């Protein structure tokens, strides 16, 4: 009996010890930086932070919990930086209580993929994409699809649209694009991570959408560029603002960001004006507080964070293309440099260069 009692007491004390340990502030070691956020750039960040650890000995722990969660954690000041696919709105920044800097790290894109007999290389116009997802174009041999694809024979088959059922940055970029090219889409559906889809089927994650497209003949959906490239899925050429049908690729996505942008880089580059840019592209950002002296953060810690950011936008860029992410174009790197330099500790710039 006594033995059992002791065991129970031991268990209880262990439990409380564990609780106490877990509740101590996580920002303890200056040799380890903490980040959380977007899942889309996670493989890229993993490679980056792993390389950074091997060259500098600074460990970066990034939790891919989703953009929303990353912003939440930054607001609660439990992480050094957040990662997000959608830039924070003015309202979100004002809720955070202090100015926030967005550092672009790479670009992603959304491709239109499909499953029709023979899977020919299709060309598609923005209006047709919007009308297919609005349920207004329902057949593959619709005149408007055939007009953009001279010489391609398409069957008299229903188009089943497949979209992401989980809230996702991919959906946000895609719907942002559709809002820009279709007034009806903007009015009826709008832009966001989760939408009220007028028609079609939902599947969870890129693998879910890709799997369903393979399973349903006559289906059409959208997935991330990196997923489509990695799985050799057919991708439609999309007509951009300049009237060019652009094939989604790492180069054409980088080109899409080759436009004049605001100094804070908070910009949507969908429907880009760049003549050879792929129109459904977007940045992904790391977000940090501009003034880094908060919650008792030490200067060395802040310095290693800023050095990391500097490294990501320079040396880090070479790892992007191999992992099917589009690297930042020169213009964007220049803007990002200015932003990293603007980070301060107690009012003083951290990076003197």
């Amino acid at each position: 009996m006594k033995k059992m009692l002791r065991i129970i007491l031991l268990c209880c004390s262990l439990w409380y010890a564990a609780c106490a340990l877990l509740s101590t502030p996580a920002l303890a070691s200056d040799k380890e930086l903490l980040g959380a956020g977007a899942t889309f750039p996670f493989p890229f960040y993993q490679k980056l932070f792993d390389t950074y650890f091997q060259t500098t000995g600074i460990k970066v722990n990034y939790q891919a919990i989703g953009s929303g969660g990353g912003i939440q954690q930054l607001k609660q000041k439990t992480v050094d930086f957040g990662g997000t696919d959608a830039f924070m709105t003015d309202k979100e920044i004002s809720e955070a209580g202090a100015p926030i800097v967005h550092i672009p790290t790479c670009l992603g894109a959304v491709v239109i993929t499909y499953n029709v007999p023979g899977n020919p290389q299709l060309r598609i116009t923005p209006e047709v994409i919007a009308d297919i997802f609005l349920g207004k174009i329902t057949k593959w041999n619709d005149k408007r699809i055939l007009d953009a694809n001279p010489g391609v024979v398409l069957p008299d088959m229903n188009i089943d649209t497949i979209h992401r059922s989980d809230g996702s940055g991919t959906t946000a970029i895609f719907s942002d694009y559709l809002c820009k090219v279709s007034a009806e889409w903007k009015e009826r559906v709008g832009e966001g991570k989760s939408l009220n889809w007028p028609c079609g089927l939902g599947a969870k994650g890129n693998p879910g959408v890709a799997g369903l497209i393979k399973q349903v003949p006559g289906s059409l959906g959208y997935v991330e560029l990196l997923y489509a490239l990695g799985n050799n899925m057919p991708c439609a050429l999309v007509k951009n603002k300049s009237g060019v049908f652009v094939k989604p690729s790492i180069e054409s996505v980088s080109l899409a960001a080759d436009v004049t942008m605001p100094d804070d880089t908070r910009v949507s580059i969908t429907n880009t004006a760049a003549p050879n840019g792929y129109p459904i592209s977007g940045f992904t950002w790391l977000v940090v507080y501009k003034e880094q002296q908060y919650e008792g953060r030490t200067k060395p810690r802040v310095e290693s964070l800023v050095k990391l950011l500097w490294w990501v936008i320079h040396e880090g860029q070479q790892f992007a293309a191999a992992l099917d992410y589009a690297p930042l174009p020169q213009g964007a790197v220049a803007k990002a440099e200015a932003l990293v330099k603007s980070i301060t500790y107690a009012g003083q710039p951290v990076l003197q260069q």
Partner: protein
Amino acid sequence: MQDSLFCSSNLRRISSGFSPEGNNVQGASDKVFRATLTLIALSMVVLLCVMVMTLVVNSVPAFRATGFRFFSSTTWDPVFKQYGSLVFLVGTLLTSFIALALSIPFALSIALFLGEYYREGIFSSLLKSAIELLAGIPSVIYGMWALFVLVPLMRSLQLKIGVLPYGIGIMTASVVLGVMIIPYAASISSDVISMVPSDLKEAALSLGATRYEMIKKVVLPYSLSGIAAGTLLSLGRAIGETMAVTMVIGNSNIMPESIFSPANTMASIIANEFVEATDPLHIACLIKIGLLLMAVTLVINLSGTYIIKKMSVHR
């Protein structure tokens, strides 16, 4: 009931044998031990209360914004902040009850087979362990199996009967759920069936009843409430099932037109949208759906317990 009574009186006899020596010391440590156990047991109740409280508190903004219209509206639009949960409620109830209807014949057959025909032997233990294995398979595996095997089958069926051949939808999700809950319903039912007193069965046989007649007239009526309770409890599992359903239901937030239409369930919408929800009202509405899901599960479980209680009085 009788078994447990017998056990506890036995225990009392054993413990009384110990008590005369070192009564005081034993008493003190006994008290501490008892208190510790009570504390740990109570912590479960506290945990439940805290969970319900969390759901209620966090869904207050949703109640303020959408009120009770939330339960009758069919529009779920995070962009324009219109939130209604009727589509998900209908999806959950439809998939669960169709799954139940599909699983009952199988569960009942297995239960009769194990409880009445083959109570022991290699074949019976083989079947029993197969069923246990089936119960232990993670739901994501069921989902994958459904996506790759069931969906094409369902599509060819849909082509034959002339509905839109998506392959995924309420019916596909129900079939997966049905397969998932068979082990639960079957094992509870076979326990109940094997508890039917043999004197009753012998009486029926001695009156000239065949085995089939005996099962029909004695075994089934006697164990009906127990089987119903087991089925209801497995229904509780079907209602909360998320992963396998999400993979094959089509995740369409539109009121289903037929049992082959794509739809969505409460558990599935929460799993899909909660992670990336940033708007406070969106989060609150998802939590409100969680509260609704909990309430529905509670009702199902309570009615299950009620029927079990009725059954034991019957005995």
